[in-house]
């Protein structure tokens, strides 16, 4: 008898023992004389349930998790029904049911390298439609969708593509920024490991829109599984003729530098140089990789494109809030009970997500702070939990949404230490071009130490230093490090030993 099961191969699932479960399933199936077909998919993004095993019954995928190898024999005994780890239909789990999955529509469902399954689940419809349109029409569709960059800055994607379309150049390039260095983020990784053709399709559409003959995916060395999956998917796409002489994609791998996620440092790195930030102008759209007009987009920006083309701009912009249109893959991590990836329309509040959907902290203690947007993002206290998750909304609350990672901390966190870490991170990762960033961050660490030691003069010095970093930095590494530092100080003065009076 044959038995088909689905089990993720996503790095987070592996990190929690998915391969050990696979091994136990094979052993058990063999012992029982069953012919096991084990399909390794991406993850659904419900990381607290990993390893999450699925079986299809009457058209529904039923889940079991989080599994340990010792659970496996009883699973077979129960004929994959009544088991203590049974979760029922996976798509009816509230965390999943409440999502709107556009970019992640197939992630966790299909085998990542199965092109037929990709097509059967709606893949390639966007590219097929794009092939019937002129470049100008594609750009207009992206502009109309309201799509903005998911890498952090929220720049309108249609305008960027239009600039490259109109730029003079014998050759043009599309660069996917998959450097994903922000703590608390893993959407890029999860998409590549779970549905790499979605990225390839998005890049192919972009190439057609701007007239590029070459695409590059800049990956990070911290993601070995994603790199292997991308390479494999590129081979499949080449064999299928999706990639070829007309448009091909190469992968490039970074080497542990955070600042290489900044688009001009990234281009330097791809060219084989030190990852140093370039002054703008020229914009990458005019003079990017090897001097060619280049689109640099975040991976999620590009992976959002196929659904916009297949469903239409109107459909996409029917989701969202204000000027933040469409969906965003929110990533909730750190000390959180139900952590993972939650793709939803912009506009849910921080509190609704963190406490409503994600159940508060893993430790069971009260949530004290949520850092949003990575190491350059602000710490939000509970009093700001009614802030809707959107570009302008987070900005108005004194922070930024960035690549949409939310890191949850319980009440044992010491915000003075977190502020100091923000400065330390900036010092470690600075590319060295600007003095306020390179030297200021080191001074910042020292000054925070002085505040924590009770020096009454130090808070004013720190405020000054932050102002200098904001004003005198070429990129957001130096320029935005004041966000986590000052938000920690502003919202949690008690963690700085009574620094409040002096700071105000």
């Amino acid at each position, binding site marked *: 008898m044959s038995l088909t099961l689905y089990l993720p191969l996503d790095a*987070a699932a592996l*990190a929690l023992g998915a391969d050990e479960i696979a091994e136990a399933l094979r052993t058990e199936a063999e012992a029982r004389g069953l012919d096991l077909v084990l399909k390794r998919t991406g993850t659904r993004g419900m*990381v607290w349930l990993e390893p999450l095993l699925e079986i299809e019954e009457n058209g529904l995928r039923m889940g079991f998790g989080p599994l340990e190898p010792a659970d496996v024999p009883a699973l077979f005994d129960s004929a994959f029904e009544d088991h203590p780890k049974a979760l029922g239909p996976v798509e009816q789990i509230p965390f999943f049911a409440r999502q709107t999955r556009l970019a992640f529509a197939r992630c966790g469902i299909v085998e990542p390298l199965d092109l037929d399954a990709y097509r059967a689940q709606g893949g390639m419809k966007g590219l097929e439609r794009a092939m019937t349109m002129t470049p100008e029409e594609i750009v207009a569709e992206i502009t109309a969708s309201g799509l903005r960059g998911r890498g952090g800055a929220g720049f309108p994607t249609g305008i960027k593509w239009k600039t490259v379309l109109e730029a003079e150049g014998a050759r043009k390039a599309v660069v996917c920024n998959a450097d994903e260095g922000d*703590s608390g983020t893993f959407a890029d*990784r999860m998409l590549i490991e779970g549905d790499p053709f979605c990225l390839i399709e998005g890049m192919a559409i972009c190439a057609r829109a701007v007239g590029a003959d070459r695409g590059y995916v800049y990956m990070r060395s911290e*993601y070995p599984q994603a790199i292997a999956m991308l390479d494999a998917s590129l081979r499949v796409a080449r064999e299928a003729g999706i990639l070829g002489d007309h448009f091909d994609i190469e992968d*490039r791998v970074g080497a542990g530098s955070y600042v290489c996620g900044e688009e001009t440092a990234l281009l330097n790195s791809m060219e084989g140089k030190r990852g140093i930030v370039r002054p703008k102008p020229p914009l990458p759209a005019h003079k990017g990789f090897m001097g060619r007009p280049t689109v640099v987009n975040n991976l999620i920006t590009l992976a959002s494109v196929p659904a916009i083309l297949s469903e239409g701009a109107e459909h996409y912009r029917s989701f969202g809030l204000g000027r933040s249109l469409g969906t965003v893959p929110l990533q909730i991590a750190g000390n959180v009970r139900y952590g993972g990836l939650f793709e939803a329309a912009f506009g849910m509040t921080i509190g609704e997500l963190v406490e409503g959907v994600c159940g508060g902290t893993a430790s069971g203690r009260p949530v004290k702070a949520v850092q949003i947007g990575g190491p350059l993002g602000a710490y939000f206290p509970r009093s700001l939990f009614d802030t809707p998750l959107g570009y302008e909304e987070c900005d108005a609350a004194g922070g930024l949404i960035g690549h949409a*990672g939310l*890191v949850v901390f319980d009440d044992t966190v010491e915000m003075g*230490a977190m502020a100091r870490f923000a400065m330390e991170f900036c010092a470690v990762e600075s590319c060295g071009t600007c003095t306020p960033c390179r030297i200021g961050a080191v001074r910042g660490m020292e000054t925070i130490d002085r505040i924590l030691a009770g020096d009454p003069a130090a808070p004013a010095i720190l405020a000054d230093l932050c102002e200098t970093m904001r004003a005198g930095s070429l990129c957001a590494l130096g320029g935005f490090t004041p966000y986590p530092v000052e938000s920690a100080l502003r919202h949690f003065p008690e963690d700085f030993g009574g620094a409040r009076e002096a700071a105000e």
Partner: protein
Amino acid sequence: MTTDIIARCRGIAAAHAHLDGPLLPVLHAVQESFGHVPVAAYPALAEELGLSAAEIHGVVSFYPDFRTEPGGRRVLRVCRAEACQAMGAAALGEDLKARLGVEWHGTTEDGAVTLEPAYCLGLCACAPAALVDDRPLGRVTADRLERLAREGSA
């Protein structure tokens, strides 16, 4: 340093020379082959790629991943970033340094393990996280990490 290694580095460089911007792919391939980027190979790499040895040095020294001396038989990358800190990564890091008797970037005396800091491994929803070579690990303890890092590398 044998001439053989230099010749092989030259071969790696030649195999990538057709790329636009070949240097990082070359350095990764060299490090993959030898566990580090031998300084003695800079002139050969430079010649194949039309660069100067000083430029190669500049690039190698910029990127944290590249090492010019051999590391341990296993590399243990432990995340120090915020989401992992929310789950105790700071104490984990201190504990590991003490157990292995090294600072960050250090290699144990017996050459078994190199301890490297990482700033996010994309495993933030199962923090604290680490990589032992390429193997991802979530919700780790110092005990388990030390054991896995030493396993088969003693």
